């Protein structure tokens, strides 16, 4: 049983015009087995929340705290956060030329598990996970994310989640840029990992369509750097109907 506890989180980025405050006090607690949808208009700070928890150097924490099972996440280096059990599926996965997917996955699994996975079982594990996500085995020999289509990048993110088995996963617009088939395959992947490992999920999205495949327990509406409304799955239906207009003008 794990708990991610975000309290009054405030985050700024430095711009040419000086520091710009983006997160203005975010409170959110996610426990194992729970799925929390974070929904909000573009530019409201959803990715900033995700990156700040993962430790991207671009973001400066100006207040608040993030704890995972009592450990201070904000004190950890980026790799320590991953080892502690956090995983971020990025909105824009990064290309790393010359580093093969198979080398990358194995290096990451070695780091997270604390020892190199046994070669024989590992190869099978990767193959199986790739097949489940409908990924061509040839991807293993390609450079990380290089020349991948949008959908292929997102599948690759979920593949990593499946192999690294985090305690809490943050999925930042994993649904964007996916056609219906890809959306279904990726969603099934998320559900599989969720069910078999009892992980907590922060599902960041702009649209409600992914919520047809991944059922949220809680929906949080995000606007101007904070959570402005909370409810159950029914809140998503309201957003589907009315959009974000009332929150933006607020």
């Amino acid at each position: 049983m794990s708990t991610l506890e975000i309290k009054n989180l405030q985050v700024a980025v430095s711009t040419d015009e000086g520091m710009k405050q983006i997160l203005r006090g975010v409170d959110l607690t996610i426990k194992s087995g729970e799925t929390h949808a974070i929904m909000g208009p573009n530019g409201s700070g959803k990715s900033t929340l995700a990156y700040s928890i993962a430790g991207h150097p671009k973001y400066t924490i100006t207040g608040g705290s993030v704890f995972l099972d009592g450990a201070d996440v904000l004190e950890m280096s980026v790799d320590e956060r991953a080892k502690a059990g956090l995983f971020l599926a990025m909105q824009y996965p990064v290309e790393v030329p010359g580093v093969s997917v198979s080398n990358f996955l194995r290096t990451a699994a070695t780091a997270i598990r604390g020892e190199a996975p046994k070669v024989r079982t590992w190869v099978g594990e990767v193959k199986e996970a790739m097949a489940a996500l409908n990924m061509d085995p040839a991807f293993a020999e390609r450079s990380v994310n290089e020349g991948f289509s949008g959908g292929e990048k997102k599948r690759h993110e979920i593949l990593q989640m499946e192999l690294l088995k985090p305690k809490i996963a943050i999925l930042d617009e994993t649904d964007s840029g996916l056609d219906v088939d890809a959306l279904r395959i990726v969603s099934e992947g998320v559900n599989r990992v969720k069910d078999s490992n009892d992980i907590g999920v922060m599902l960041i999205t702009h649209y409600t369509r992914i919520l047809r495949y991944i059922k949220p327990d809680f929906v949080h509406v995000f606007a101007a750097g904070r959570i402005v409304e909370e409810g159950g799955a029914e809140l998503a239906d309201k957003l589907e109907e009315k959009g974000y207009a009332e929150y933006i003008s607020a």
Partner: protein
Amino acid sequence: MTLNSNLLAPHTPTSREELWRFTPLAKLRGLHDLDVALSSRVSLGTSQTQAGVTLTIVDSLDAPQTSTTDDLVSMRVRELATKVLRVEISANTEVSAPIFLTRSVESLDPEVSRTEIRLGANSRATIVVENIGSMTLAEEIEIHLETGSNLTFVSLQEWENDAVHLGHHHAIIGKDATFTSTVITLGGTLVRLLPTVEYAGAGASAELSGIYFATSGQHLEHRIHVDHNLAHAKSRVNYKGALSGDKARTVWFGDVYIRANAEGTDTYEVNRNLLLSDGARADSVPNLEIETGEIVGAGHASTTGRFDDEQLFYLESRGIPANIARQLVIRGFFLEIVSKLGLPEIEERVMNRIEAELEKASV
């Protein structure tokens, strides 16, 4: 600055001259200095024998150059070399195993070396020049590719730290012939190489790639010159370098010249440099001169920068510690070129050496 335009008189170059202004002449041990005597020796050789491959040592009078040069040190090599190593690949022969030509000298006395490589029509071979040990060397390799031949040429600079090496590798590529060259410069205190290309028939193709890694106190200079002197030839140039440590220095020039008669030329050149520490300096100058608009394509790119923070963040966010993430990125940077060789043994050797250098530089 074409190969033919300035046939200047032999003299000792100074750093006021454009072609020499980046090179620390004082470190050359006289290789460039007309007042310093250079000995002549055939320092390359092989212990292999393979069908279709003939090695002979011929008198330089029987091996006249067919190309011109404006490189003052190449002129000295031509003048002073008494013997020439000639490597011939018989026509219509495919030599399956790579041919290794290895330096076998351990002396810092300045000397010159000449090599001639000839690929017969429709032959195919891989030749690896292994520059190892300690030398003060000025060398020229002239490479002739007859119609339809295919050469994979690798020049490995795995010198000890005190070596000084000036080299000119000139390829003349025949009709429908393919020249694939990979220059790998890791060792030596001063290495200055001039890979140059001209064409002898339509459908000729040159792929020139290279990697270099300079650590503290090393000066590694590469000056590529591709002369699109006739129509319907192709060239690709791709060099990547990394620098680490105080006074690590690299210089890269890529001169591609498309003459007025070279319609249908297809060329692209790129140089990328990765600065791994303060105090290192990389110069990168791609230069494209175009005298005809009737071409398939021509382009160039050059970048010099530090680590991509986004790449490092991505790797670290998967639990990979920062130092291993940096090593992965550097490895990947070079592997993009080295893995294309299709020579696993060389790939492993080169990557091991790079890793050892990285460890020493504590990147």
